[in-house]
Structures are given as structure tokens and as C-alpha cells.
């Protein structure tokens, strides 16, 4: 007899002391901004202990998202993977709504693309996925076991030449393998040679992940919501076209310590103060 699955898991990972600290901060912000989340979902924190109990090796570190998700999909209908180095700022409940295999977030904006070029010489992309369409692995919603199995098939030692590894494979699956995909931030402007089924997103005025990065200094705090006003930035990289409410921000940028330490230079005082409250253990601001 088939076991009835639970509806929803939020997957957080805290491997190593630095990322465990990040994960705790991210979860504190998630719970503060989604006070009823624990009635809807189980928050599953995978630490060194769980990693080793599941037989994790050095190689598994490179593709933790599909590897942990595969494990969780045995018990849950849907897994929301949230990177530890994120702060959740808004209601995330719309992210799992709809009939899709995977819901994804974007990896860049005009300023981030420039930053990627400065850091790596080229923007992050794979195959013929345009850098502005490329999706980020930091916030992924997965409902399809088939999708995860497919993802894991890419994660082989032979494929280690892919610069972003699991994230590159997420993009290959998203754009070329005819899955039902929901874009949480924004859809590609030109579908060109992509092969996918776009699932409409009714909740389009939000940025979930990296789409706001680089413009954070212009974010405003309004009624406990963070809003990136339209046409922030300078004349050469004005962004976005409409006001966007931020659901999450993602520091990303590789394995660095102190990712949460620069809030004072990245955000206006009131916003930084609010974010510090969200990631703290305390309940009052």
C-alpha cells in the first residue's frame, strides 16, 4: 500500500559551522515573515549529522539540492529548497501553487550580469541559455521525482567541467527537457530554441532571490515589506520596469564568511535594522 505523502518540506542545509549559522539566520527570517509556515510545511535542516547519516561524500557536496530533494520526495509531495545565505522577507506561500515540475528563480539582473563579468570574465550561462534567463539554484521548488532523477543523472564525475555543476544542470533541465516550469521572478523574453512548458505565474510583482542584488541600496521598507522601486540604479543599468516586492534576498557569491555582516553598507538604515531583526533570535524590533 502506497504511503500517503506529507504535502510540503522546506529544505535548508547547514553543512559546516559557517553555513549552519547562516541556515539558522535564514530560518529565523522565514519563520518571522511566514508565521504559519510550520502548520503548512516541515522545515528540514540538513546538518553534518544528517549528511553523513545519509552517506554523503565530498562529491555529494556538489549537488546537495537534488540529492537531499530525492531523499525528501519519498516523504513529501513538494520540496522548497532555500539556500542558507538568504534572508526571507515576505510570504512564500505562492511559490508552491500550481501544476508544475519545478519552480525557479532568476540568477541575474543588469548589474549582477556586470558583476559576474567583472568577477569571472563572462556572465554565468550554460549551453545556449542566455545569461539573463539562466536560473539560480538557491531557491527551487520541486514537485517531480522524475525531474530530480533526471537532475541526478547529470551529476557525474565526468560532468565536473561544468562551471556551476548542479546549477548548470538545473538550467539544462529547465530549458531543454520539456518540463513544466514556473518562473517565480520573470519569464524569458524570447523562448527561442528552449523546450519547456511555461506554467503561468499569477504573482508577478515579486523578486525572490538574486533579481534584486546590486540594487539593495535603493530598497525601501513600507508596511513591513521591502520594495525595490522601478528604475532603481543609474541610467545605464536602471532596473526593474515596475516596483517589485522582495520575498527573499540571496547573498550568493561563493563560499565566504560574514555574508550577513555588510547589511549596513548595502541597505538604508531602517531596512538594515529590519533585516537584522529578521535574522536574529529575538522577537522584537
Amino acid at each position, binding site marked *: 500500500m502506497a504511503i500517503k505523502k506529507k504535502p510540503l518540506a522546506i529544505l535548508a542545509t547547514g553543512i559546516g559551522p559557517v553555513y549552519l549559522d547562516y541556515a539558522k539566520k535564514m530560518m529565523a527570517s522565514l519563520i518571522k515573515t511566514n508565521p504559519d509556515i510550520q502548520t503548512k510545511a516541515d522545515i528540514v535542516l540538513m546538518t553534518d549529522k544528517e549528511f553523513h547519516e545519509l552517506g554523503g561524500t565530498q562529491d555529494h557536496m556538489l549537488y546537495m539540492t537534488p540529492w537531499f530533494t530525492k531523499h525528501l520526495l519519498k516523504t513529501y509531495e513538494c520540496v522548497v529548497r532555500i539556500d542558507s545565505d538568504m534572508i526571507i522577507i515576505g510570504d512564500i506561500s505562492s511559490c508552491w501553487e500550481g501544476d508544475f515540475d519545478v519552480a525557479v528563480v532568476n540568477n541575474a539582473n543588469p*548589474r549582477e550580469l556586470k558583476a559576474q563579468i*567583472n568577477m569571472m570574465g563572462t556572465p554565468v550561462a550554460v549551453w545556449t541559455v542566455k545569461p539573463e534567463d539562466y536560473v539560480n539554484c538557491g531557491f527551487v521548488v520541486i514537485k517531480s521525482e522524475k525531474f530530480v532523477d533526471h537532475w541526478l543523472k547529470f551529476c557525474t564525475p565526468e560532468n565536473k567541467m561544468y562551471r556551476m555543476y548542479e546549477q548548470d544542470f538545473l538550467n539544462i533541465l529547465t530549458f531543454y527537457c520539456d518540463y513544466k516550469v514556473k518562473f517565480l521572478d520573470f519569464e524569458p523574453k524570447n523562448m527561442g530554441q528552449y523546450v519547456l512548458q511555461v506554467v503561468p505565474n499569477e504573482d508577478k510583482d515579486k523578486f525572490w532571490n538574486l533579481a534584486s542584488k*546590486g*540594487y*539593495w*541600496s*535603493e530598497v525601501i521598507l513600507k508596511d513591513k515589506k521591502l520594495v525595490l522601486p522601478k528604475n532603481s*540604479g*543609474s541610467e*545605464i543599468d536602471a532596473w526593474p520596469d515596475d516596483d517589485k516586492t522582495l520575498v527573499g534576498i540571496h547573498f550568493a557569491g561563493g563560499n565566504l564568511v*560574514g555574508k550577513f*555582516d*555588510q547589511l*549596513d*553598507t*548595502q*541597505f*538604508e*538604515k531602517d531596512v*538594515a535594522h529590519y533585516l537584522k531583526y529578521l535574522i536574529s533570535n529575538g522577537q522584537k524590533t
Partner: protein
Amino acid sequence: MDKRRDLKIMFLGDGIHTQSGYSVQMDWLIRRFLLEGFQVAQVAKAGVYNHWVNFPLPEGNLRMYPPINDPNFCSDSMFYSARHWGAHIVIPMIDIWGIDPTWINNTKQLGCKFIPYLPIDSSPPTPGVLRNLQFADRIITFSKFGQRELKRHGYIAEMFYEGVDINFLTPMDKKEAREKAQLPQDAFIWGMIAANKENPPRKAFQECLEAFKVFSDAHPKSFLFIGTQQISQGSFPIKDYADYLGITDKLIIPDQIYFSLMATREDIKIWLNCFDALLHPSSTEGFGLTIVEAQSCGKPVLANKVHSMQELIVDGKTGAFAVPNRKFWSNANSYWEQPDPMSIYIAMEKIYQMLRDKGQQVAIDCRKNIVDNFNVDMIFKEKWLPWILNLQDEILPKGN
């Protein structure tokens, strides 16, 4: 006011005795922090060699460290000095694009906060500056212009103006000042005190000479004083161009050796008091210290209507603006905005008229602008001290 003084503050910049614009700001800031009872050190980009020294000042002892392998930006010395002295924060007051990020991160790993106090002197800001700001724990900039530009490019900064010691830079009797400086009494003297480090020159020497030629044709009893401390190979050939324009006899250039090696703040005060007005239409400025120094002595200023300079004078009351006629993309990867020579001339005439019609009132307005807005004691008391005490509470909480 909280009298806890646990925070160890290290500045990085021109040695306080080296007479550059930055050194003057370092000097007044450091002395006031010492007077408040803080422990202060300086990594001296210029002025100290080979070994650290405890430099005795009336306000207290200043620990000074020399450069090591990076004489221009002291990246390595910042780290080793912070480690040796046990700094809690380091405040570089330089163009930070040259600091090696590896050393910034090494310094931060000591637990020492990296807090640049920096000029933003172009739009867009120099990419190297923006690159290094990502490592900053706090940012302080010199002008509202800089604060706006940083915000447009992803960074939030405090804004603390540079300032002047209004008790030192005071108006003097012009006749007496000119006697001391041996300058002509019955002439209209435009003054420039500016570095000459590149060509095209940031301080717009070419445009100023061209404008002054037109002015001196209209006002034969006029002179242009140009004092330059910093001169580099590839700088603008001021004398040669004045020769070419036929105005060499209208130029007053102090002895270079004296100006570079021996000139003191007292000399600067006397020269500023000799001038009828200051000519300072730079194509780029992060602040423009001489602009406020001249006004402190009651002298109006002609500036370029770009960058921080727009905040430093009151148009029509304490000076006038030239306007740029073109932008060029500098090797710092940002625009410099060259002042139009004819607009400089028009502004020169405007200031000339202001002084002729209401000279005493202009002097009063200039002085008032500085006393009200750029007084170092006021800036220190209202901006720096509360800010540093808050920072102390955050970094070194009471009771720990």
C-alpha cells in the same frame, strides 16, 4: 556623553605633518579624537619610514606606522599595523581603489573593521572604488553628491563633510597679507592652490589660463597666482602655456622648492588672504578643500558646477560657477567634466562685480557659510563623535 574610550582607532592616509589636503583633514580629526581620550594610530602613506613611532602631539601620543611594500596605498602595512597595535577599526582616508582586497580581507580576519572615509569624485564612481567597497563594514563619504552616487551604485554611506579649523583660517587684513607674501597691493589677484599631476589636468589649468587671459585683457591690473605642491611627470606645462598665451607677466608662481618642502599652513593662510578670489573649477572633485579654506578667510570662490563643488559655495553670494562643456572618459574609468573657458571668464566677471559692489558683504557671507556648515569642531561634535560612540557600543558592547 559616554566617556568610555575603549575603541582603538587606526587611520590610513597622508601623515598628519605632510601638508597635503588629506593630511590636514587627518590632522584635525586625529587631534580631536586624541583630545576626546581615544587611542589613535595612523598608517602614514607619506611621511614615516622604516619603523613605527610614537609621535607626541599636545593632544596625546599618536602611534604612526610606515608603509612597507605598498608605498602608495599601504595595503600590507594596514594589516601588519592593525595586528601590531590591536586596532578595532581602520579608517582609510584615501582613494581606496588601490588597496589590495587581499589585505583588506586579511585585516578583517583580525576582527578589525574596514571603514573607508572616501571621496567620490566622478559620475559614475570609479569601478575600482566600488569593487573594494564590497568589503567595507561602514562607509563614510565627503559630500552629498558622493552619497547619492554611492546609493545609485549599490552602497549606503554616511556623509561627513570635510571641514576647516575656523579659528586658524581666519580673515586677515589683505594689505598686511600681501606685504608678508610680497605680492602687489594694487592688483586684483586670482589664486589657485592645486596639484598638477596629469594632463589633461584635473584642476583645469588650461581652461583657467585661457579664461584669465580674457579677464586680464579686460582688467589689466590683474594677476593669477598658481601654487602647486604636487607635480608629476606628465603634468600640465603651466608656464609654457602661459608663455604661449602671452600672459607670463601676469602669472605669480611661488618658488617651487619653498612651496613643496617648506610651505606651512601659515603660508597657506597668508596666500589665501592675499587673493581677491579663488579660482577652483576642477573637472572632478571628491570635496575641494581649498574651496572651503578660501571662504573661511572671507574669499569668494569660482568652482565648476559639478560633483561636490556644487555644495560648497552659495552661487552669487560666496562665489560663482563655471559650467562644463564636455566630458571625457578618464583612465579611472569614469567621466571628468571640463569647465568651459568662457564660462569661467563669465563667472570671473560675476565675482569681480560682486566684490566691487558689495565686497564686505561677500566676505561676511563667505565666512558665515563656513562657520555654519564646514566648521571642523562642529562636524566632529555633531557627526564623528556620536557615530564613533555608537560604533564602539556595537563592536565592544559595554560590560564585555
